[in-house]
């Protein structure tokens, strides 16, 4: 445990320059040459550097720290009802079963009569089974530099138990199919002061905003680019963030108002996105720049 934290600290320090570089590679390139370099090459230099780094980090993935905390929280009796999620929460494969559950969500849960992504389902269990108040969880659902919510640990733990498994969102289920189709429409919906939709930035291949690659969410590999790595450990800030957070932050960039935490809108969008990535292998909680 101690050792891991040390590794993490070293890691955070080690990455600082890389992060800065990725934002603005080659601070002062020779002017003329910069233009001749095709955009794709510039992008790849930054990406390759990070890929290399990520590969080196494979056997001491910072996400494991959060998985360990999540495991403890999953297994211990907690909340006003003093119940463990391990003995009460059904993620779709039976009470307490987490092996492969993450890659089979979003799915339809009859007890809640809703299509839910993993994070939302765990929140549902915390509320319905353990007696936590939804509003308390929703008050600060995402991590910041000084605080990691339990739900983040829990979802990271559950995601970790789908490592190297194929995504298999049950799209043939009519309720899930409907959620997928609505999610697809949400992704295409342009509004707001800048007329943006998700597809403005994520609707075709090989696009970037500044130096950040934009996955094309409508293709299997593109969608996988939007799925792999979440929940993800952010080097910048050293915090663990979830897929729900990513959706919210993209709506922010879209100049939209904020999606309510664990709402249908986000579950539908995730159903569309993760459903598009069906068949791809999920490598587990990841590292982000």
């Amino acid at each position, binding site marked *: 445990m101690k050792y891991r934290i040390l590794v993490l600290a070293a890691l955070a320090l080690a990455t600082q320059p890389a992060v800065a570089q990725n934002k603005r*590679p080659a601070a002062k390139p020779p002017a003329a040459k*910069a233009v001749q370099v095709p955009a794709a090459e510039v992008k790849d230099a930054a990406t390759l550097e990070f890929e290399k780094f990520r590969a080196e980090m494979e056997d001491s993935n910072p996400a494991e720290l959060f998985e360990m905390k999540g495991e403890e929280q999953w297994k211990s009796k907690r909340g006003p009802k003093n119940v463990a999620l391990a003995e009460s929460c059904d993620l779709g494969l039976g009470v307490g079963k987490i092996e492969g559950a993450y890659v089979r969500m979003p799915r339809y849960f009859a007890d809640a009569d809703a299509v839910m992504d993993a994070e939302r389902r765990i929140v549902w269990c915390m509320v319905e089974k353990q007696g936590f108040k939804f509003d308390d969880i929703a008050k600060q659902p995402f991590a910041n530099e000084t605080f990691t919510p339990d739900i983040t640990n829990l979802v990271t733990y559950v995601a970790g138990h789908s490592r190297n498994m194929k995504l298999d969102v049950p799209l043939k289920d009519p309720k899930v199919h409907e959620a997928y189709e*609505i999610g*697809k429409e949400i992704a295409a919906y342009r509004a*707001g002061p800048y007329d943006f939709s998700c597809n403005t930035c994520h609707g075709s291949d090989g696009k970037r*905003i500044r*130096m950040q690659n934009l996955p094309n969410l409508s293709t299997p590999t593109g969608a996988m680019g939007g799925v792999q790595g979440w929940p993800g450990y952010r080097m910048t800030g050293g915090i663990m963030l979830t897929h729900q957070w990513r959706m919210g932050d993209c709506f922010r960039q879209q100049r939209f*108002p*904020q999606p309510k935490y664990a709402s249908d*809108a986000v579950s539908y969008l995730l159903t569309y996105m993760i459903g598009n990535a069906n068949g791809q292998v999920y490598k587990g909680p990841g590292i982000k720049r």
Partner: protein
Amino acid sequence: MTKKILLAVLAAPLLTAALPAAADADYRAKAVATLKKDFQPRGQASLDRLAEDGLQTVCNRTGNKPPEYLAKQMEADQLAGVKYPADGKLMGDWREGEKLAQSGRGFTWTDNPGLPVGGNCYNCHQIAPKETSFGTVGPSLYQFGKLRGNSPDMQKYAYSKIWNSKAYNLCSEMPRFGHVGALGEKQIKDLVALLLDPESPVNK
């Protein structure tokens, strides 16, 4: 005004009749209902941002491929709304334009609504050669003036494109900066200079 209303009235049934919906209307309606139910205002991002204006409606309902006749008419309407400087000068200071092009500030729920917004241009375009951190959602604008000249017509085109990109391409992915009040006259002039001034690094 009456002409607009008439057009809207005429266009509505035409739209539904002539446009085999690019997507299933039922799912779209459910998507809109879901958005309205599941969002909350935050900072300056109020819920009215979820409502479509006429142009957004047409683009949303046609999968961004409106029929030619409708696109032409609506592009002309967008162009008619462009406000040009009273003194007729369309080129400002490219240095100011470069600063503006760099800034990605504005309109998000974390932005302070009291501060002026940026142009966001580098988010999507290559512009001056020194800046290598540029996006590729839009085409490269490097050497824009060198390649296209800076005649009064070109100036007018650049100015009105930035004021309202939809005047030339109804469902463009580029925001309508002047139209929505993000950028004002002076700022757009500075951006025109960045693109067209022979002294601008864009054209060196």
